[in-house]
Every structure is written in C-alpha cells, then in structure tokens.
C-alpha cells in the first residue's frame, strides 16, 4: 500500500511537470507580447527592449524555462509582471480558498440533490418520479453553467434581491455571509455535476438492486431502509466515486467561468485575467495549482477504492 501511494505520488508529480512545461511553451506560442500590452502606445522600441531585459524575456526560451523551473523547485513561482509585481504564490494563496469554498459548496449541494434523486429514480424505476428526475437531470446537463449563473443572478439577485449578485466574503467574517455570497455560483456549477451523479447513482443502483446478494439480504428479513443504506448504496457508490473523481474537473472548470460571472477573484478569474494580459508567471502558477488539484483528487479517488471495495487490492 505504502509503495503504491509512493509510486502514484511520483507519477502525479511527473504529470504536473508535463502540464507545467506544456503550458510554459504554449503560452509563448500564443501571439501577443506582454510588454506590448503593458506599454500600449506609451513606450518606444527602446523602452520595450529595456522592459524585456528587466523581466528576463529577452533570453533564449530554454534559458527562461530553466530559470523558471529552478525557481519553482524552490517554491518560488515568480511575480506578476504587472505594476506592483505581486508574487504569484501570494495571488494563488489568496485565490485558492475562494475556488475551493465554491467547489466544495457546489459539491455538497450537488450530492444533497443527487443522492436522493438517484435513489428515488432507481427504486421507482419507469414511474412518473423516475421520469421527472430524468427530465431535470437532462435539463441540468444541457444548461451551460454561465447561462444558468446569469439566470440565477437575474432571478435571485436582481428581481427578488434575496442574495448578492457579486463578490466573496471569507468564512471567518461569518458563515452566513460566506454562504450567501457563494450559494448562487455553487448552484450554477453544481447543477450539471448533480445531474451526472444522479444518473450514475440510478444506473449503478439498478444493477445492484437486481443482484443476487440483494436477494439474499431481502431473505434475511431486513427492512427496506437497512437494505438501501446497509447493502445497496455502499455497493452502488463504487462506480459513482470513479465518475465523481472525473467530474470534479467539471467543478473546477465550471468555477473558472462562473467566478467571472460573479466577480469572485478565485483561481479561475486569476487564470483568465492572466491569459488576457499575457501575464506568463501568473498563468503558469495557476495552471500548476489547478493541475495539482485535479491530479491529487483523482489519486484520492483511487485510494478511496481500496476502502470502499475490499475486492480491490492496491499494489
């Protein structure tokens, strides 16, 4: 088990390195120059060249890569090339709680909806309940998250004025304020995720419910509640957890778009602003962190398997 975790960890680090390297070179292939964007019409060719030299952008690409990589290994992701030159690490440390709060709240909301919906539609297969759940699941899957976000703002913030339309309040300034600001974006992101999970729970439960060991459990004289929570769901969750790991990417990528709609300065907004400004160090740092979240959440899922399914031995 320990050697499995170690090997998977090394593998994850290699993946992150590959992603970081790819992003480093791809960013520089994109047309557009940060200095041109920064100085606009304010500076002549000499100023531009001086700026390039000052930021180290005049050196060979390989050398730039080497320097960035060496600094990164020491935990230094560089600084934004703009204005006050804030260190990238600081920008990311400020952004991460926002994105993680948003994703986790979206995850919780999605599960609160998906688990009962999945159970209902599996146990009442092909009834009106099942069809209704399926209808809303497909509706949820088909709505783009940014569109749903705008819709939610129009209804709950603009018309009803129940909830704020933009911004973020840290959790230490009050749970309610934090929740009030995040609930709309969390719903916007979580809807598609919830639909996928509900459908997955339905099909997985249907398979488990018709299995021989459920028949055995029924003949033991267990109550329907014990059958569902003691025997059916734990077995049905095994494939659902796999999908959850993959669909977690959906939450993160959803956050990138939806953060912009709700003006929450999370990782997504940092990333998009960075890309628009050709702020190389910021984009590189943000992508590295996003890929780390993704890679390690998948590693976590694989490790969870061993806990949830005793038939799987991790070597």
């Amino acid at each position: 088990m320990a050697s499995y975790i170690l090997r998977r960890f090394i593998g994850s680090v290699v993946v992150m390195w590959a992603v970081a390297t790819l992003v480093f070179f791809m960013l520089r292939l994109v047309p557009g120059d940060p200095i041109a964007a920064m100085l606009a019409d304010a500076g002549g060719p000499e100023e531009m060249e001086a700026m390039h030299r000052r930021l180290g952008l005049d050196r060979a690409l390989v050398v730039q890569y080497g320097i960035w990589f060496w600094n990164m290994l020491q935990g230094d992701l560089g600084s934004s090339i703009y204005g006050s030159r804030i260190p990238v690490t600081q920008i990311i440390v400020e952004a991460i709680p926002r994105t993680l709060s948003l994703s986790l709240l979206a995850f919780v909301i999605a599960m609160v909806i998906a688990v009962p919906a999945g159970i209902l539609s599996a146990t009442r297969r092909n009834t009106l309940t099942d069809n209704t759940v399926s209808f809303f699941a497909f509706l949820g899957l088909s709505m783009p998250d940014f569109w749903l976000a705008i819709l939610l703002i129009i209804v709950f913030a603009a018309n009803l004025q129940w909830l704020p339309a933009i911004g973020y309040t840290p959790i230490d300034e009050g749970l309610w304020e934090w929740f009030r600001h995040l609930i709309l974006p969390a719903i916007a992101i979580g809807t598609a995720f919830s639909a996928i999970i509900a459908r997955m729970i339905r099909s997985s439960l249907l398979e488990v419910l018709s299995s021989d060991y459920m028949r055995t459990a029924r003949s033991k004289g267990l109550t329907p509640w014990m059958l569902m929570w003691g025997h059916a769901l734990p077995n049905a969750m095994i494939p659902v957890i796999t999908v959850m790991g993959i669909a977690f990417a959906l939450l993160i990528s959803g956050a990138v778009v939806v953060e912009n709609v709700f003006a929450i300065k999370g990782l997504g907004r940092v990333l998009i602003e960075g890309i628009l400004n050709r702020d190389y160090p910021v984009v590189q740092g943000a992508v590295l962190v996003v890929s780390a979240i993704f890679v390690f959440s998948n590693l976590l899922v694989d490790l969870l398997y061993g806990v949830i399914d005793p038939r799987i031995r991790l070597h």
Partner: protein
Amino acid sequence: MTATASLLEFNDVHVHFPIRQGLFKREVGRIRAVNGVSFDIKRGQAFGLVGESGCGKSTVARAALKLEEPTSGSIRYAGEHVSLLVGPAMVKYRRKMQAVFQDPFSSLNPRQKAGQIIAEPIRVHGLKPPSQIKAEVHRLLDLCGLPTRFEGLYPHEMSGGQRQRIGIARALAMNPELIVADEAVSALDVSIQAQIITLLEDLQRELGLTYLFIGHDLSVVRHICDHVAVMYLGRIVESAPSEELFSNPTHPYTRALIDAVPNPDPAVEAGRHVEPLAGEVPSPANPPSGCVFHPRCPLATDRCRTQSPDLQTIEPNHDVACWNSPQAKATPTTAQRNLT
C-alpha cells in the same frame, strides 16, 4: 411420512408475469411461469423439484420465499396463508424459511466479511444478545465445517464451496424450519457438490430441517430427496417418492429426463441407447394447447393436443399428469385435481 403435518402447501398456485409493450406499456401477453402448481411438503421431508431451465422451478422457490406474489392460488405455511401475513408475522415467517441460492459467487455481499454476513440476521432479528453473537457465528461456522478464522474473510477470498458453506451458515443463523435450496449445488464442482450435499444431509439429521430442494441434476436430487416432483412449463407433470419415481417413471418427460442421465460405467454407457427428447421447451408466453408436453412427446395422441391432463394418483403418493397413464386411459372423464 404421511402421518406428519404438512409444513409448506401450494394449492393451485399461478405466477404470471405480464409482458408490456409499446408507448403506453399495454399488457400484450403473459408469461405463465408457474401455471397451477400444487404440492405438499411434510415437516422433516426433503422435497425435490426438478425440470429444465425455464420450467418455473425457481419461480416456485421465489413464491415460497414471498419474493414473488402468486397471481392466484394459495400458499400455506404450517396451515397459515402466507399472502395474508403482514408485519411481525411476516418477519417471523421469513425467519422460519431460509434460502440457499445457486451462485455462491454473487449471492454474498462483496463488501461484508463472512462474520458480518452471518451475524447480520442474528443482530437484526435480536435472536441472541449482542454479547453472544460472536460465539453464535463461531458455532454456525463450525456447524458448516469452516474454521472460525473465516469470519474475517471477504467472499472473494474464499472458494466456491467455502462460500456456499457461508451461505448455508447464514441461512441457519435464523434457526429456520425450512430451507429452500434453489440450485444450491449446481454452480459447484462435482467433488464440492458432494461435500455440500453431505453437509445438507447432516444438517437435516441434526437440526430436523425440511428442504425444498430445487435442481436439474437428477442424480443429486435422487440422493438427497425423499419425494420428487417433475416440472415442465410451469406445471408439475409427475410427483412420487424418490425410489418410486426413479424405478417406475410414468410420464414420458420423466422417463426422458432419467434416460438422459449418463451411466458412470463406460461399458454400460456405450451400449445404452438413448432417445434424446426432440425440440425445445416452448415459450411460457405461448404454451401449446392441450398437454403442454405434446409437441415433444413420443406418445402424443389427438386427445393430448386438445385436452390438458390433470394429475392422477396411480400408486399411493405417485401422481402423474398424462393421458397415456393407465389410470387416465381407464377414466376418460375430466379428472378432478386431487393431491394426497
């Protein structure tokens, strides 16, 4: 055996499944999985039910276990109507009747250890105080010939025979009177089959169990059962004490089944002429007219094609549903359904 009270009694039980098709799920037909089955299992008896796959024998088991509701007819357990049981009486019934299922690979929850599998019914039904559950699990494992260390193993860590022993220990945990063994040994290797059959026989002797043993392997059924009923397409076509059935098979279908069992002696087997049964089992959604066996029967007459024969007693305890049985020929009127 006739003097003892009956434990499980099926009286003209039908189990039909509707076939639904089209946009509005209209019922377009019915699968008559069990079509008028009657039998009577005495306390302490080992009752065998044999037939080809699809003949409805597993549906009989499911109906007995109340996993399936009969469309019509009555099932009585120790004199009580099973379909009227609700609430605590129902739970008590479930406890008295336990099943051992066919496939020991899929019938045990993969996420539970053997100890949990056996302990769960004891705990849920409060059969033992919590402090004694562990000892009870050990006793049951021992009863089924497994060392106590098996309580810590998951089903996938055991062989098929060991799993089936766990399945039996689990059934015995409820202290049942009747064990429904639905193809309980069919999925096992022959040598393991012998072990499990011996175990079932020992348990019957020690605990005074009653068995409803369902199988398609005649030699296994003959070995373990006192009384055997042969099913074909949802009906019982012949029913007799084991020795009587095997020495004096009367229904052409029973004869064909017994003929199909190979003789273990190759010299005898080589010289034996077996007339294989022609054709396939017809669909229970669209059964043939008259006697359901007539399309495959070597003795079929015009009467067989139009009129369905009822079970008739030809010897004490020996019933057969065939127009060609001596009694049926002697009494051409529609015989009344009569079971001893």
